[in-house]
């Protein structure tokens, strides 16, 4: 593991193979085919991506740590296989990067927090291990809001991320680095995590595709826990097909995570080409109410019209409890976070403050190690769980969560997917919402529902506003029906281009 600034000057020369054509907006298949046809080696390609990161990332801030040694070792292995004529795995040589909330053996993992500034995990997250086993080359670890708590990546304890589409704006959050790295072609695909919209909202803000799978679809072993009943791992890429390839690789039961479901993994890529004529697309008025930016509304309504032209039947549905999703989410998520983050006490790993007794050591460690938003959420969650308030807040929120889930169960009796905006506005300016936590929380208004209900959701680009800022179309599907979700998204994407 090498810290980013240390490798900035280790120039790679003499590669001689022009992989630049693959650099911008490259797809997984393009990379794999180029390697099979020996147009480029995995090693040269990784070098090109590192060159690009060194050139572009100082102005974007997507990466926290680069793991060049590990990447080049993997690339060399792929090149060896290609030279020996061994059939290459599905992600052979594909440069990917990982949100820094997933642990990587021997590679520093911070969760965007100073409390884990020096933490070098002893094992790999299952999703990361599965990508590498499928041939992917892991370039490094991506910036995010501290412990994935935030909607703009401004809560990173290291530095903010700038949206590659407009550097004065946020990339969204909390997986802002994951979205920005794909948008700036500093990785072909990335992994993020989504607890209340942290994959879909940044995908929307940066103009890329982001998928939150069904709860239980992807193992969370090695994901640093924020809110365990809401946390998901999922992919970002430039195309729906690449997201399908990534999902196919990371999905499926893992004995190391008892919440990973024992449900067969279909071939999501093969399913993409099936027709969508006759599928029913639900539209809920609750997702088009007050607070929705008029240009976002127009773009999403045009996208729904496009789905109708593609042969889908548009069906009005009702999700009546949607307006209660944000308050429900901010109780459930913070209550779980207050419990999960109790482990950061300075005893076994991470930062420790010097103090003369144990109790003071815990307090000063947590005070010095956690940022303001993390402390705020721990406080809110602890309050909601404390004696006298448990019934009024936590139990109440769990009951409303059941109502929100029931809304989706009823709607999916009538439709196959539901279409909605991903976020109420395009990317906002850096600094615009940092002093108003409630305004920041409301940026998640259309995404938290899928986490509470556990259903899959995807964000795909569907247009731009008058300033050229990307707008995302969000689609939801039934539990474990990512195949239909991806198929509709793929058809829409191809009808646009």
């Amino acid at each position, binding site marked *: 593991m090498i810290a980013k600034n240390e490798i900035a000057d280790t120039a790679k020369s003499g590669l001689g193979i022009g992989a630049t054509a693959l650099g911008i907006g490259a797809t997984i298949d393009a990379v794999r085919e180029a390697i099979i046809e020996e147009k480029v080696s995995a090693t040269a390609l990784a070098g090109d991506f590192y060159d690009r990161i060194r050139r572009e990332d100082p102005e974007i801030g997507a990466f926290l740590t680069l793991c060049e040694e590990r990447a080049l070792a993997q690339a060399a292995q792929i090149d060896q296989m290609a030279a020996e004529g061994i059939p290459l795995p599905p992600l052979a040589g594909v440069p990917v990067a990982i949100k820094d909330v997933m642990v990587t053996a021997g590679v520093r993992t911070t969760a965007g927090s100073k409390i884990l500034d*020096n*933490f*070098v995990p*002893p*094992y790999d997250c299952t999703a990361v291990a599965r990508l590498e086993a499928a041939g992917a080359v892991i370039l490094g670890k991506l910036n995010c809001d501290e412990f994935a708590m935030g909607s703009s990546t401004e809560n990173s304890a290291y530095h903010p991320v700038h949206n590659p589409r407009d550097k004065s704006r946020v990339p969204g959050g909390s997986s802002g680095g994951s979205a920005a790295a794909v948008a700036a072609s500093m990785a072909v695909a990335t992994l993020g995590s989504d607890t209340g919209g942290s994959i879909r909202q940044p995908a929307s803000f940066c103009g890329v595709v982001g998928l939150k799978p*069904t*709860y*239980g679809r992807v193992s969370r072993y090695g994901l640093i826990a924020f809110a365990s*009943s809401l946390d998901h791992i999922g992919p970002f890429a430039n195309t729906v097909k690449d997201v399908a390839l990534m999902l196919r690789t990371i999905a499926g*039961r893992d*004995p190391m995570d*008892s*919440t990973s*479901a*024992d*449900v067969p993994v279909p071939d999501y890529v093969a399913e993409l080409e099936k027709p969508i004529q006759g599928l029913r697309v639900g539209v809920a008025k609750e997702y088009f109410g007050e607070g929705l930016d008029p240009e976002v509304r127009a773009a999403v309504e045009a996208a729904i019209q496009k789905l109708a032209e593609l042969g889908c039947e548009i069906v009005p549905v009702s999700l009546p409890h949607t307006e*209660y999703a944000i*308050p*429900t989410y*901010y109780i459930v998520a913070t209550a779980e976070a207050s419990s999960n983050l*109790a482990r950061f*006490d*300075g*005893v*076994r*790993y*991470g*930062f420790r403050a010097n103090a*003369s*007794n*144990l109790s003071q*050591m*815990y*307090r*000063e460690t*947590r*005070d010095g190690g956690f940022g*303001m938003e993390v*402390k*705020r959420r*721990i*406080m*809110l969650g*602890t*309050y909601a769980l*404390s004696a006298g308030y448990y019934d009024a807040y936590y139990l*109440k*929120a*769990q*009951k*409303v*969560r*059941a*109502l929100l889930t029931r809304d989706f169960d009823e709607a999916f009796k009538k439709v196959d997917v539901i279409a909605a905006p991903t976020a109420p506005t395009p990317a906002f300016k850096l600094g615009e919402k940092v002093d108003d*936590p*409630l305004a920041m*929380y409301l940026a998640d208004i259309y995404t938290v529902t899928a986490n509470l209900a*556990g259903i899959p959701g995807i964000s795909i680009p569907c247009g731009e506003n008058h300033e050229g800022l990307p707008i995302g179309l969000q689609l939801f599907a039934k*539990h*474990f029906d990512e195949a239909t979700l991806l198929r509709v998204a793929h058809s829409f994407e191809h009808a646009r281009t």
Partner: protein
Amino acid sequence: MRVTDKNVAYVADLANLELSSEELERMLRDLNSILGNINRLNELNTDDVAPMAQVSDRYGVDDARQGSERSAYALRADVKEGLRPSLPHQAALKNAPDTDGTFFEVPKVIER
């Protein structure tokens, strides 16, 4: 109900957080603003609604099974041999802020 500065200090104590007076003040303001929004949940009558803590016991499981049988797939067989080895001792200690090589070391717990 509004959060008071007393509540904030008490909760900070429960959460093992040492907050500066400036942070306490900001926390009081932010918690009241956020809880003001959260109190809207009381508009809903949930008397007959069962609380939902998890998604995973509702979907993706064999509906013919009931109770703990529903998540039986998550249990491994009870075996004496062939278990996955634990993390080696030295690997587990590698990130320790303070260790004697065998244990994690912490400041004195009991004063005498």
